[in-house]
């Protein structure tokens, strides 16, 4: 078997060059909470592991154009300590903080959670609902990719050879905006989502929903952006009728599997329930004038 090498470049250009040279044999290391488990289990045999954490751009949180840019290798613990992100995007922060234990939070990153490609990744429905855009760099340069276009199947991403996610851009936050993420697990902590739902809304001054995005996790081969569910909210005050339509649209979008964590019927039903509950939390946050 090929011997594994470890590199920790301190610039994006150097990382891109190493990953391009390595081709299929290269793997990106961010927090390592998935990669090291896969290495240990013999699921992956990379010839080169490129640790991106010494690259300033992937470790920074900065304000940009009225919104925030969050490095792909910022840890969950660091995100949760960032007052600006907690205020602007509490749903994204709460989703990311649901990933694993305190120990996992000390290492796990949104970039890794996304690029691991799990349909049940907790941060991803919230990132999709937020309208976050991934800045991807690779041999052909930099490109912006909406988060919902990154995962294309379980464990599979649309990233080309040598490409990796540098950061996430969160859009400007208008007044009266709120987001929320809820997941169902049979325990209270330390589990994989059976269903996850992220909702992001913006109200006008009269409390009418002007914009909405809904993301669902663990109910299909990839996390989903559900336009019909968002459309059910837009133009409403999130009254019961709108919430019923939201729940129906969320359930209708599900194409889940049966497994030990939940049946198709259960996941389909719960997706609607969680979307509705998350929408009500997002509504409260929007009314608080965030």
């Amino acid at each position, binding site marked *: 078997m090929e011997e*594994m*090498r470890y590199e920790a470049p301190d610039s994006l250009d150097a990382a891109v060059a190493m990953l391009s040279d390595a081709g299929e044999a290269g793997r990106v290391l961010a927090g390592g909470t998935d990669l090291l488990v896969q290495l240990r289990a013999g699921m992956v045999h990379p010839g080169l592991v490129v640790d991106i954490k010494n690259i300033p751009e992937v470790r920074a949180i900065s304000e940009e154009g009225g919104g925030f840019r969050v490095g792909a290798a910022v840890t969950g613990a660091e995100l949760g300590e960032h007052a600006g992100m907690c205020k602007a995007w509490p749903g994204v922060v709460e989703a990311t903080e649901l990933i694993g234990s305190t120990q996992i939070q*000390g290492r796990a990153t949104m970039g890794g959670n996304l690029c691991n490609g799990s349909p049940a990744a907790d941060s991803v429905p919230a990132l999709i609902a937020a309208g976050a855009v991934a800045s991807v760099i690779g041999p052909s340069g930099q490109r912006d990719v909406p988060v919902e276009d990154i995962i294309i199947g379980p464990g599979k991403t649309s990233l080309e050879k040598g490409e990796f996610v540098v950061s996430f851009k969160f859009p400007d936050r208008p007044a009266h905006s709120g987001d929320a993420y809820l997941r169902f697990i049979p325990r209270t*902590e330390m589990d994989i989502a059976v269903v996850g739902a992220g909702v992001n809304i913006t109200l006008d001054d009269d409390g009418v929903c002007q914009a909405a995005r809904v993301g669902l996790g663990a109910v299909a081969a990839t996390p989903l952006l559900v336009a019909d569910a968002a459309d059910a909210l837009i133009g409403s005050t999130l009254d019961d009728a709108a919430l019923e339509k939201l729940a129906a649209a969320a359930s209708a979008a599900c194409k889940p599997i049966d497994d030990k964590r939940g049946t198709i019927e259960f996941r389909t039903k719960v997706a609607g329930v969680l979307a509705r509950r998350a929408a009500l939390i997002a509504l409260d946050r929007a009314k608080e004038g965030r």
Partner: protein
Amino acid sequence: MSKYHVSTTINGDPVEYLCEPEQTLLDVLRDELYLTGSKEGCASGDCGACSVLVDDRLVCACLALGAEMGGKKIETIEGMADGDELHPLQQKFLEHAALQCGICTPGFLVAAKSLLDRNPDPTEEETRYWLAGNLCRCTGYDKIIRAVLDTAAEMRSGK
């Protein structure tokens, strides 16, 4: 096979070591440096028996590579007592009989110290959530939680 030369700080002392690229921080601590207080339970980040601090952040040593640790500050269970004087958490774990086989204990102690360093007055719920990544298969969790809360109360009172 080429080894990686790493300069780091462990429990306040400068330490240099050589490691293979696939060795975890836990492998390095236990097999290269003979700091065997950090235990290997699951080797997949689920049990917390290998909990250590890296740059003041609680992590599982089984989920970090030894090669990543250049310039980092690492703290392990071996640095917790002050010579022969136990840390208050260690003393309270004894008083409350908060251990049985002891495999999980170093991880619980390191994780609990990291909680009290950040929050000297945690609620029971905060303590249980903070320690949710540390598994114990013997005594259950009540005595451990009580020992941590009792330590916090005693340290706040300055005794």
